[in-house]
């Protein structure tokens, strides 16, 4: 036991001190933080409004201008960028076009005399070509304006029309009556699955490389004259597991520190408040109300994550499934690595071994679509696939008995994999220059040594 601890220490310390480890551990949170912070920075810094000059021969926008020279057509929620419609000085489109070339305005909208029942000939001129987004926004505004004109023309009762309009807001509820946010659940499920998937591969590969290194540098026989091969294998696997957990912990802590630091520096809370206020000041009051309602709902959704998600369950399960899945797969990786002489040879065996993991990842979308289906169920019980699949299912609330069964199976799978790996490992590390086949690996299992 004392010796396995020495092995764990060595495996841990040499890796944690390694430059690559330090670099990835400290740079990745910066990347994460950047993903959070850059949109905020964009919001604060680069608000460049787009001005659209309007030549309105039909006086279609009369209502909107309300006697003023311009009105705000649309506001981008993320950046705060506004599309401003501005009445042109010119009534003749040719003059307006000539003048527009000199101006720094974004686009020129020409609404000719038209029959509102068959509107034709609306044109947008622009220096550089419009972004699809802006074009569709302008079109939408012109359309709604024409629609409003039609309502007046046909004498439709606006109140009646408003009543006819249906705005259905469907809430997904669990049978317990709690609110459910399926997009969020999908995201968390997919995220959890992908993290386990990558973690198992990344740290499993480190174990594999470590074993091959000991063999190719020929130190293995020196070491196993002091410790049992099984102790060496487990020491390596556990040491690298600790490296992984350290890295995860540092990522989470550092990301939180950086994000909190930057946002508090920028006063992001105030910004968000202002954002909501601006949204409500939008021109179309009804739209604004709706937006406001949605924003509020989203905000309350985020506030209620803890209610929406079985968060403690997910975190506990993440640690269990990471450790279980990692231990199981890295033991198998260690076994094949012990049998070969180079990393390249090892790769040819790791691909078939990691097939279940790849399959569970590929099946991800299917599982997330039907998290309670039979396939999802069985894949989340089978130990080779359960780490990824169960993480995907978990946000959709998995019954406790299934979780218990799955973790028990994972534990058995881990014990089995370690036994299997230990049997192969003790033979493999003393084998040099042999052509390795699955048949041979199978024979090694039962070899007396």
């Amino acid at each position: 036991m004392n010796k396995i601890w020495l092995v764990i220490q060595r495996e841990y310390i040499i890796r944690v001190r390694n430059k690559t480890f330090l670099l990835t551990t400290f740079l990745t949170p910066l990347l994460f933080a950047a993903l959070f912070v850059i949109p905020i920075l964009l919001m604060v810094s680069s608000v460049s409004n787009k001005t659209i000059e309007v030549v309105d021969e039909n006086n279609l926008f009369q209502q909107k201008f309300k006697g003023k020279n311009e009105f705000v057509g649309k506001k981008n929620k993320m950046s705060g960028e506004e599309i401003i419609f501005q009445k042109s000085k010119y009534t003749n489109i040719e003059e307006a076009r000539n003048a527009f070339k000199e101006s720094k305005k974004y686009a020129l909208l020409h609404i000719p005399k038209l029959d509102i029942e068959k509107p034709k000939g609306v044109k947008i001129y622009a220096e550089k070509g419009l972004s699809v987004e802006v074009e569709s926004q302008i079109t939408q505004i012109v359309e709604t304006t024409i629609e409003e004109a039609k309502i007046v023309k046909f004498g439709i009762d606006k109140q009646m029309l408003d009543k006819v309009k249906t705005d259905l807001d469907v809430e997904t509820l669990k049978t317990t009556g709690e609110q459910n946010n399926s997009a969020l659940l999908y995201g968390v499920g997919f995220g959890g699955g992908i993290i386990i998937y990558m973690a198992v591969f990344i740290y499993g590969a480190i174990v594999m490389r470590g074993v091959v290194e000991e063999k190719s540098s020929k130190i293995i026989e020196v070491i196993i004259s002091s410790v049992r091969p099984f102790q060496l294998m487990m020491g390596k696997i556990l040491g690298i597991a600790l490296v992984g957990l350290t890295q995860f912990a540092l990522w989470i802590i550092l990301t939180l520190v950086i994000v909190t630091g930057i946002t508090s520096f920028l006063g992001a809370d105030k910004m968000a408040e202002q954002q909501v206020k601006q949204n409500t000041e939008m021109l179309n009051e009804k739209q604004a109300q709706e937006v406001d309602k949605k924003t509020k709902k989203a905000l309350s959704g985020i506030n209620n994550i803890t209610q929406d998600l079985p968060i403690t369950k997910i975190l506990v399960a993440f640690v269990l499934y990471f450790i279980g899945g990692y231990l199981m797969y890295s033991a198998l990786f260690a076994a094949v690595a012990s049998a070969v002489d180079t990393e390249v040879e090892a790769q040819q065996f790791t691909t078939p071994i990691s097939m279940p993991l790849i399959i569970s990842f590929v099946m991800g979308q299917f599982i997330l679509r039907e998290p309670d289906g039979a396939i999802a169920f069985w894949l989340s019980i089978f130990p080779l696939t359960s780490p990824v699949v169960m993480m995907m299912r978990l946000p959709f609330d998995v019954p406790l008995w299934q979780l218990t069964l799955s973790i028990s199976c994972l534990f058995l799978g881990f014990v089995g994999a370690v036994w299997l790996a230990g049997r192969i490992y003790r033979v493999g590390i003393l084998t040099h220059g042999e052509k390795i086949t699955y048949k041979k690996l199978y024979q090694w299992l039962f070899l007396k040594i």
Partner: protein
Amino acid sequence: MNLDKNSTNDFILDVQHVSKMYATHQALNDVSLSVPRGQIFGLLGPNGAGKSTLIRIITQIIRRDTGEISFNNKPLQPEDAENIGYLPEERGLYKKMKVGEQLLYLSRLKGLTKNEAMDRLKIWFEKFDIKPWWNKKVEDLSKGMQQKIQFVATVLHQPALLILDEPFSGFDPINANIIKDEILEMKRKGTTIIFSTHRMESVEELCDHVALINKSQKILDGSKKDIKNSYRTNVYQVEHNKSFENLGDNFEILETEKNDDHFLSYIQAKTNGLGNELLHNLINQTDIISFQERLPSFNDIFIMLVTGKTTYKNTQQEVQHYE
């Protein structure tokens, strides 16, 4: 065949009837041998004879199928690994690890505390004059330097039994000599050393006791002196400058070669201890340039045991001077 006539019964290691079977290959077949305490024990035999298998069984890297092994008069235990130092034939170091750290790690695996290991390392680093290497990565050292480090790693925990498998393979002559001196020094301090090699001539000068292994079986075992004596062929090799004919009833001239300005003759004596008589007879007939008894080398003995052929000419050009 056990030729150990002056057995002391103080054996640090006693191997009894050990056999080992790999899938289809009998690696060791009923091998028994006893390693006397404080001696250098040569484990000789060609490649693939089973030497490494036997050593791996003694170091408990692999298990024996049958047989008993006792270490210090008690059955061999896993804890005994801390009293055994092993330098395998296939040896290396962690290339990316620093020299000092690596030696600390390896010696702690052998049961030393950190402080003990540090104290002893300081002595070795001074002795080999390698202090500046402490913080160097192994991959930055030359092969010879790495071999010194490996040797230090093997002996740092001051094992009672040191097992060296082909210790000089890959060593340059200077380092080989340094290591040879260290081995003799350790023997002087009471360490027992098992020395395994297929190059039999290389251990003749070092070993006190020898076991020969061929095709998974021990074919010979005994003290070097006894073995040499029992395989004494009573052949003398004489360089002389005039030919001679009759040397008396006790002697037979096996062969005479004429070289540039002298002759080389091989003379068979009937029994032991006739050297003086032969000299006496020769002096009357010729001028003697050199005179020596042809003691067989281990290589000769081995070839004789394996092939059944006796040879009085030296296969390794190695000559034991007559005393």
